[in-house]
């Protein structure tokens, strides 16, 4: 795998065990905990109880809607797992998550490389700023705007028709065969700036000598990308991809406000299913169960991911 390929320059990354030694010797054993303390206290204090509650809800029936919920053990879980709607939502979530993250990565990284190029600083500022635009509008506006654009008589159909690419206007968000693709398009558009900005920042810490050394060896653009940029930015890519995966896995407002899971349930993902269970059906226990299942899947994935990250260090 390219990820494991050795960089051509000096390997800066982590071997320096003596370094840790040095830091550790220089400080009391409590130091790292002090650094972490404020963060853990805030997260623990504010999210500890709610997270516990959600797990508790999933073990009771009629929470929130009745004053005295009944303990039902794992019944909610067996209900959920025997519901075909859950499995199709899980599959849709998988498609949506992988598609979106790939879209974000490809578009975000390419644009980051382009706006990092050696061009006039003022032009660079303008391009960089314009390209983050998709990120700075609230989801409701993004969704409504795309509904206008993708309407059968909207401007996209009109232009595609005028260019002779389509004969009939397409119902991008209402056609069962197109809806998921349209959603991926919107999600990619909405999400790439995060990757672009993060990646752009990461690019600044790649020592220029590495590229120059690679150029002397006759490396072309893609070689440099795979053998210099990617290995150097591994920590950043790891972080960004992890966050983007978790984030997209439970992305709610954009999907709900654009297609509402439809037509039928072809774009129903776990987060919209969870919402539907909670606030359309008022089955809060079942919604909590779906939420815990999202938590379990994400956590299992993250553990694997973190293990892999450490191994690659």
């Amino acid at each position, binding site marked *: 795998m390219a990820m494991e390929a050795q960089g051509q320059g000096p390997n800066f990354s982590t071997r320096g065990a003596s370094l840790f030694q040095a830091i550790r010797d220089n400080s009391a054993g409590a130091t*790292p905990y002090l650094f972490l303390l404020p963060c*853990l206290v*805030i997260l623990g204090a504010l999210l500890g109880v709610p997270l516990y509650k959600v797990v508790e809800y999933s073990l009771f029936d009629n929470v929130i809607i009745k004053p005295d919920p009944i303990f039902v053990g794992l019944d909610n879980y067996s209900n959920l797992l025997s519901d075909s709607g859950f499995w199709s939502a899980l599959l849709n979530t998988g498609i949506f998550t992988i598609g979106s993250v790939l879209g974000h990565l490809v578009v975000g990284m390419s644009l980051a490389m382009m706006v990092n190029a050696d061009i006039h600083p003022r032009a660079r500022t303008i391009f960089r700023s314009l390209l983050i635009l998709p990120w700075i509008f609230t989801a409701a506006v993004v969704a409504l705007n795309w509904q206008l654009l993708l309407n059968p008589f909207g401007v996209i159909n009109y232009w595609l028709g005028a260019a002779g690419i389509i004969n009939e206007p397409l119902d991008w968000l209402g056609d069962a065969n197109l809806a998921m693709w349209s959603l991926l398009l919107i999600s990619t558009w909405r999400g790439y700036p995060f990757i672009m900005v993060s990646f752009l920042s990461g690019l600044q810490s790649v020592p220029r000598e590495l590229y120059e050394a690679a150029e002397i060896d006759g490396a072309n653009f893609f070689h440099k990308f795979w053998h210099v940029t990617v290995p150097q930015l591994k920590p950043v890519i790891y972080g960004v991809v992890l966050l983007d995966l978790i984030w997209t896995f439970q992305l709610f407002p954009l999907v709900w406000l654009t297609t509402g899971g439809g037509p039928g349930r072809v774009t129903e993902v776990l987060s919209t299913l969870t919402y539907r269970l909670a606030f359309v059906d008022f089955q809060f226990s079942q919604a909590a169960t779906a939420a815990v299942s999202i938590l379990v899947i994400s956590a299992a994935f993250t553990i694997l991911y973190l293990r892999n990250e450490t191994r690659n260090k």
Partner: protein
Amino acid sequence: MSVNGQTNPYRNELVQERFRRAVIYIALTIVTLIMVFPVMWMISVSLKPTTETFSLPPQFIPETLQFDAYSRVLGNAQFRGFFLNSYLVGIAVTLLSVAIGTLAAFGFSRYRFFGEKTAKLFVITTQMVPTITLLIPFFGVIVWLRLYDSLWGLIVTYLTFALPYSVIMMNGYLDTIPKDFDEAAIIDGCTPIGVLFRVLLPVATPGIISTAVYTFLLSWNEFLFALALTRSTEMRTVPVGIAMMVGEFGLKWDEMMAFSVLGSVPILVLFMWVQRYVVSGLAAGGVKG
């Protein structure tokens, strides 16, 4: 610009370089136009009467150019309050989250300690439950803390959403900085805090900026908790104000788009300003020692 052109005639290299730049400019212009088109459409909607937004064929350039929607938004004191609240909350969340997140990220990046992985997993786990299901119990906590219907309630809420991102992202950026830097500083007699502030942060400025941008926008765009945790009009934020324009019997398309566009202009200006610091930290910060 590379200077390895010993084997090629200098002129030839210059032409090549110019050509390369021209290609980049053209490509960037095309891609940017495509990516920005939906936003231009929003601006177009904000500048024309709604009947024209829905006319056929679709008019990108407004036939009847009008700034009514903008004057209605700007003339409304409530809306100005929404902007102010959103910016205040966003800035507070950004400062707190970057500061606290960077400290934790430094701990994760530069130390190996007992419980490290569990702590990291906990930080990430807090982001894995769909916020919609957290809403009711979280709401209970905020009411209990007496932070209900106040900007502090929103600040604390968004801090819990943004912190894990700050930690993970800053951890990634700090990991890209070679540990040689720390060693040099430690030999010079720096404390861990000194290493962080004097050596790593100057180099990690681009990372801090991208984390800050992320945090600010998270808070800027959030709607669900903004609506639930505030009640009085004085505490509402921009996304709530926008949602109010989607009524039971009608949608104020032009006003909604005008409101969004107006709100985003300061952000764009701010981003233009901070992105100047997204330059090679290695060059800018220099290597100490």
